């Protein structure tokens, strides 16, 4: 007599249902937390001291790793493309292409990945540790809303500082691309800058800044929500942090697609 529960089909269905349930619960938590965050922001209930502190973490603390990742990526891409364009006699387009790629996509996405790894994981593990050690319960009992105290400043820091990180990252990326173009395609700095201006559009910059703000807010919200809703112990803290990172990566990929479809199709 076959026990249905032992069959592969049942176990597969059970796994899918369980993952779907976890997915919906996580989505629900994020949505609920976002509603509360919005409520506090619209009522101007923002702790300025905490906002400044989190903004400093978001931008300044993450800058070295962000610039390294963006710079390295820019160098690698330029090393591939610049010589090929030079071979085709199209070295005058190197700066323009660098600007288009960097401003439209590379700087914000790579900075986003760096921020997720460094700041997103930190937010998630911090809040998860607080949750499992009852610090968040203590806050509630003391009648201070943890969403207002912990999540609002982090969310706003992400929205405000991510565009700043994008600007610095873009500048670094374009600088690195220019340097590599000089080395590999023998392109002078003046020619590179001249070519660069032709690829810089105010519209692209504005869209990228807006997209960065969405990235920053999303990373902060997902990371905080994941950490905040943790129950259990060290294992669950690790799982929350992983979930925060994975969901953040997916979310910024989705936002990137939405922005590309809305503005560039």
């Amino acid at each position, binding site marked *: 007599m076959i026990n249905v529960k032992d069959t592969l089909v049942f176990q597969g269905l059970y796994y899918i249902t369980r993952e779907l349930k976890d997915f919906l619960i996580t989505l629900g938590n994020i949505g609920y937390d976002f509603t509360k965050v919005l409520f506090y922001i619209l009522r101007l*209930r923002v*702790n300025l001291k905490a906002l400044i502190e989190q903004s400093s973490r978001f931008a300044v603390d993450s800058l070295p790793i962000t610039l390294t990742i963006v710079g390295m990526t820019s160098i690698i891409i330029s090393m591939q493309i610049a010589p090929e364009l030079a071979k085709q006699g199209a070295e005058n387009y190197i700066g323009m292409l660098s600007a288009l790629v960097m401003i439209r996509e590379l700087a914000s996405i790579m900075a986003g990945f760096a921020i997720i790894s460094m700041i997103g994981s930190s937010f998630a593990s911090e809040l998860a540790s*607080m949750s499992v*050690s*009852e*610090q968040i*319960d*203590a*806050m*509630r*009992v*003391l*009648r*201070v809303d943890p969403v207002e*105290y912990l999540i609002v400043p982090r969310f706003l820091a992400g929205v405000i500082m991510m565009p700043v990180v994008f600007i610095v990252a873009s500048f670094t990326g374009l600088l690195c691309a220019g340097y590599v173009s000089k080395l590999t395609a023998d392109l002078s700095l003046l020619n590179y800058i001249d070519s660069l201006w032709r690829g810089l559009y105010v519209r692209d910059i504005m869209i990228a800044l807006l997209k960065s703000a969405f990235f920053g807010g999303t990373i902060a919200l997902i990371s905080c929500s994941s950490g905040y809703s943790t129950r259990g112990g060290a294992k669950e803290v690790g799982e929350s942090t992983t979930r925060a990172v994975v969901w953040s990566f997916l979310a910024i990929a989705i936002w990137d697609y939405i922005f590309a479809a809305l503005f560039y199709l």
Partner: protein
Amino acid sequence: MTIKVQNLTKTFDNKKVLDNISFSVEDGETLGVAGFSGSGKSTLLKIISKLLSADSGKIETTRNSDIAMTFQYSALFDFLDVYHNIAFPLLERREFKGKYNKEELKKIVAQKLKIVGLQGIENKFPSELSGGMQKRVGFARAIVTNPKIILYDEPTAGLDPVSSTLIEDYINQLKKELNASCIVVTHQMSTITRACDKVILLYEGKIVFKGTTEEFLKGDNPYTRQFITASIEGPMEIKSTT
């Protein structure tokens, strides 16, 4: 009557953690809530402190005051020093914002630290304190708004006997200082004996004893006898999940 709990029921995953619980705590009284691990003691405190909601039942409090709670592992904010931990509600709650200047806050924190015998440690962080000191800072934080209802979740857990005695003395002292009504969740006999006026014993979510501490210690209720003598034999079954 300060706290009146009526017909409280709470279920987790189809298991009744609290089953039709009713009791009251009068002004200036300390109620001990005893029971095995998993009997619903901490859940009861979390419902009274509004961290959780009950499935059914009612909780009434007659005194218009904060409900303060201390946690088993202190739950101090590890990113704040002792001063900011204690002053936290006065700094962050809307009704207190701007009410006290820096000097007044310093005085209040110093006063609360003096009550728990920890003067001068305002600049230390929780990680620099012993377990007993962390508990006392937790007490100081809980009483900073002068609450009339204080809930203690296993206040002496993990402490040596001397530190436990100190904590039990502070529970009595705080009750007198604030004229507070207290509920102490514990399975330590010394805490029940030294700090509680009356006791309820929980087993599988139900109250199996309700009475004064003297009745708890000297009565012939089989549940209390088994609990006091720490015996495996008796009406209370020790499950492998507890």
